[in-house]
């Protein structure tokens, strides 16, 4: 999607002509339905469907539990049949949309089982694991990424809750959590190399990387305010950010390196906050001088590093 204002700047800079600008806007109008629009539309239809099922399941007392389960089974068979039909027709995009319906109705079917068999009191995240296991095969329906975009967050949400619950104190351990997500990122990348046609690998890599990035940011901010080990965690976060940035730079993934450089910048700011609190840098004249030098140092160092990375990216 291109914004007209961005295109105006490109026209003013002489990079594109006004005609090209109009052509680009026309192209955007033709393809105006973004991924987000489609995803929200699917979600809306699904919510409507599940809501209707829930109303029927919860209130229609004349329907026996067995009949409710049978109706859900028929619905699952129907969407599976639809997926298979379009797979046989080799219409992959439509097949994948049917598979997505199957994925969503599988989630609804777990809700129905919970309601009919009065299953509760167990782990709140268990249905997520069952849903992920039940729909794992759908990842192999096609080479498109649509199902993976829904399945992977489900899987990651379940695995984080499960790991956190089994070894609850793992979340007290900075290194364990980070190594766990680094392993997931690595598994995703290896899957992508090993089976390039399997979209799950690339999606796992990207989504585990986002989780890793958010976790690092969380730890850096917390450690800045002296939680989770304070300065020790902050220095280890620096170390991890450095190692990860170096690894991705080695593989010429400069966009990811830039993200980690931003995290390093955040760590510098939080180090400044931590020192400020610890040594009362904001309370005395000398303290303010030291904190000012630290801040200027950070402001000079970080952009230099970013520029260096950008240069490497351009020359790559």
């Amino acid at each position: 999607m291109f914004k007209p204002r961005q295109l105006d700047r490109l026209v003013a800079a002489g990079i594109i002509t006004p005609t090209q600008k109009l052509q680009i806007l026309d192209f955007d109008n033709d393809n105006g339905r973004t991924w987000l629009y489609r995803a929200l539309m699917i979600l809306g239809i699904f919510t409507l469907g599940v809501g209707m099922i829930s109303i029927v399941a919860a209130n229609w007392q004349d329907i026996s539990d067995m009949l409710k389960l049978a109706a859900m089974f028929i619905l699952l068979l129907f969407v599976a049949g639809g997926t298979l039909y379009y797979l046989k027709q080799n219409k992959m995009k439509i097949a994948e949309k049917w598979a997505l319906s199957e994925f969503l109705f599988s989630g609804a079917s777990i809700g129905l089982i919970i309601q009919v068999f009065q299953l509760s009191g167990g782990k709140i995240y268990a249905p997520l694991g069952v849903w992920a296991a039940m729909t794992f095969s759908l990842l192999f329906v096609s080479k498109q990424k649509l199902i993976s975009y829904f399945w992977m967050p489900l899987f990651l949400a379940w695995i984080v809750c499960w790991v956190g619950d089994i070894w609850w104190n793992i979340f007290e351990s900075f290194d364990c959590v980070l190594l766990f997500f680094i392993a997931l990122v690595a598994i995703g990348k290896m899957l992508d190399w090993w089976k390039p046609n399997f979209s799950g690998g690339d999606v796992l890599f990207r989504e585990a990387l986002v989780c890793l990035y958010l976790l690092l940011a969380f730890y850096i901010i917390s450690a800045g305010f002296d939680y989770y080990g304070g300065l020790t965690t902050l220095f280890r976060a620096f170390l991890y950010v450095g190692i990860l940035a170096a690894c991705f730079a080695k593989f010429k993934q400069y966009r990811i390196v830039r993200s980690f450089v931003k995290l390093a910048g955040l760590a510098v700011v939080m180090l400044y906050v931590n020192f400020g609190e610890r040594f009362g840098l904001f309370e005395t004249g000398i303290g303010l001088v030291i904190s000012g030098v630290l801040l200027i140092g950070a402001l000079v160092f970080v952009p230099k590093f970013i520029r260096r990375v950008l240069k490497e990216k351009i020359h790559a």
Partner: protein
Amino acid sequence: MLKNLRNYVVVFVPAVLFVVFCGYFLLQIALGAEVKVRIQGYDPRDLLAGHYIRYSIDWENTDCSQFSNKICPQKDFEQSYKFYVPQEMAIVLEREIRNIQNQAEIVFSYQYGKKPIALQLLINGKSFKGKNIRF
């Protein structure tokens, strides 16, 4: 041929697993013995949230003689449960459960060492919503 078979397997796994799960729980219910356990509202302020009741088990007033060795197997049960109810019965049920004169129980299908499955809610011995009897 092989690709066709693969497609069949890939698409029908969720439906097959749905049947497997249902079969598993039906079998668990069939194999378990019915036990009645006294319950109390988990939190009176949140007695009815949505279409379920949150409750905890009142072991002090439960008849433990129905279990083997006459010991209540507390470790096999969770601290709290939900019981799903139809929307239109919610107000009636809320009134019945809030009445401290009433005796509320849940009938579980229970096998030693396994997680019990709730079958029906009894208020003064009458089934509110069971597999067999209606309130």
